């Protein structure tokens, strides 16, 4: 199955987000322009209404003026004045409504001039009639009035037309602007739905794969658990069941050695002693192998410990051998090490008893332990962080040494450099040492000179 990469998933989601964002922007713009066009329509209608109502008021004023001229009733004058006030109000409102439009303002000025003219004319007629109740207005004067009214009508129509034209123009451009929007919106919606469906499939496929992997992993973990349990039962078998018959062999052999030894032939005595030694050796092997296999499973936290404290402990554990061979153990350098206490104690015990085992009997055995702090780049070990600090612990002796050719092999399980029966051992001690160093994420090297010395250098993270 092909898997979506992290990058592909990112691209899909960025793409979907961009589409959704543009969708929202376009919808917003569209709604905005719809609002604008309805506002414009509204504006145009109001302007139209105002214009019409001004014109009709002027006509009202005109008829009131005529009413006075005919009847001389003062009520007409009052009516006339309030109509004029009304006209002034509407003029002001129109001024405000057209404030955003220069040409309409010009038109309005022209309209206002005409209105002014008409009002002045009407006032003059009224004034003359008031002064002389019998006055007959000449026909020419009425003709002038009519001409002004015609002008007014024309100017009003002009303005209404212009307003309507403007509205058409604006709506047209808006329609042009928004004509594409529905199509675009729909395609965007379809696109984003498609992307959603695609990503649903992609992600569910991804989930399926990861579920498969997860169950695979769980199966493997189960198998691993099972294997671990088998290993544990093997450990138990070797620790208990294998040791049981061995212990019997040892016990019965020693039983004979203890009580029947005198009755045996000298050959039998030798064979029995050898049998006992072999049994003891096998026991040591089982014990060490067990210790080695346990090291893999038990991981403890590290703690900062005084090295002198551990050295003293180890010395008291090995007190008998140290005393017997008159071994001198010296310690120098830094005080503390960062270690898993029980394991490091084992490590040091193995190294020191190794030194004692391979002592040169012609001289006093001297074991020197030194502890130094070094930087990773001084150790020459590739895996170490060059900037970090490491404890460099050296354990060196003046024993029989070894050929440096074997300096790697001595850490392998069951590798023994000496066939001489004088140097008995299981061949696991140094393998345990190496394992412990690895448990500390450290590194160990060995160096030696035949007949002179052996040196073990341990680097541990400090």
């Amino acid at each position, binding site marked *: 199955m092909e898997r979506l990469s992290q990058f592909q998933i990112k691209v899909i989601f960025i793409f979907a987000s961009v589409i959704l964002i543009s969708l929202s922007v376009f919808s917003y713009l569209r709604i905005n322009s719809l609002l604008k066009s309805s506002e414009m329509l509204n504006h145009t209608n109001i302007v139209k209404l105002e214009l019409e109502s001004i014109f009709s008021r002027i006509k009202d004023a005109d008829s009131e003026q005529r009413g006075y001229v005919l009847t001389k009733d003062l009520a007409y004058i009052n009516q006339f004045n309030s109509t004029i006030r009304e006209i002034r109000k509407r003029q002001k409102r129109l001024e405000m409504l057209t404030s955003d439009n220069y040409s309409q303002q010009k038109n309005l000025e022209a309209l206002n001039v005409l209105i002014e003219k008409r009002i002045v004319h009407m006032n003059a007629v009224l004034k003359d009639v008031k002064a002389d109740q019998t006055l007959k207005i000449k026909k020419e004067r009425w003709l002038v009035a009519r001409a002004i009214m015609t002008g007014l009508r024309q100017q009003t129509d002009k303005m209404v037309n212009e307003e309507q034209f403007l509205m058409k123009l604006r709506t047209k451009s808006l329609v042009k602007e928004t004509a594409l929007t529905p199509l675009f919106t729909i395609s965007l919606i379809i696109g984003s739905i498609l992307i959603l469906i695609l990503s649903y499939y992609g992600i569910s496929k991804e989930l399926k794969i990861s579920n498969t992997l997860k169950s695979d992993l769980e199966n493997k973990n189960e198998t691993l658990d099972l294997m671990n349990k088998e290993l544990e039962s093997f450990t138990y078998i070797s*620790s*208990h069941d294998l*040791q*049981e018959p061995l*212990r*019997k062999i*040892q*016990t*019965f052999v*020693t*039983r004979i*050695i*203890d*009580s029947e030894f005198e009755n045996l032939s000298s050959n039998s005595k030798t064979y029995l002693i050898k049998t006992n030694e072999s049994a*003891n050796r096998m*026991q040591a092997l089982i014990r060490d192998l067990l210790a080695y296999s346990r090291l893999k499973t038990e991981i403890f936290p590290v703690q900062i410990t005084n090295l002198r404290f551990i050295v003293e402990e180890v010395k008291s554990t090995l007190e008998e051998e140290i005393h017997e061979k008159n071994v001198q153990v010296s310690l120098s350098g830094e005080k503390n090490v960062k270690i898993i206490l029980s394991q490091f104690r084992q490590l040091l015990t193995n190294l020191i008893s190794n030194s004692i085992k391979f002592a040169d009997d012609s001289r006093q055995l001297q074991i020197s332990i030194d502890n130094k702090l070094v930087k990773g780049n001084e150790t020459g070990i590739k895996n170490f962080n060059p900037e970090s600090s490491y404890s460099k612990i050296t354990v060196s002796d003046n024993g029989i040494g070894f050929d440096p050719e074997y300096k790697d092999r001595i850490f392998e399980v069951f590798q023994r450099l000496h066939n001489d029966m004088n140097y008995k051992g299981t061949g696991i001690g140094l393998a345990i040492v190496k394992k412990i160093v690895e448990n500390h994420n450290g590194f160990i090297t060995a160096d030696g000179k035949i007949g002179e010395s052996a040196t073990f250098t341990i680097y541990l993270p400090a």
Partner: protein
Amino acid sequence: MSFQSYIKNIFLTDDDSDDCVLFSEALQELFPNEKANLTITNDGVKLMEALKEKVPPAPEVIFLDLNMPRKNGFECIAEIRNTPKYKNIPIIIFSTSSNNDIVDKTYAHGANYYICKPQSYPLLKKTIAFVLSFDLKKLSQQPLRDKFVINMA
């Protein structure tokens, strides 16, 4: 060396007949002139039956193996410690195992001492002699954990 005068009855429960023979021979050799009364049973069920039959008087000490058929050592300790008639009898674990978890478990169950079966006959004798040299008071009290395991090697 002789038996302390109070030790007359010793129980040994172990399904391994070789170990039973070795134990009784070692005891015989250690104290040839004493009439030690060693009662050997081969599993926990038989131990409980023997206790029912012979107590009182209660044995001075029970040597108890852990890994046995029918009723194992742990069950025996629990049962003995929960029975008023037996609960003060000293129990010494006599097992092949040296596993720390198992030692801890027997200590928690209330065993008095723990012996890991020795690898040689002389050592076996030495260990039995050492344990039987304890006086009654020392034997019946549970020591501190670091003195719990008797190791003569």
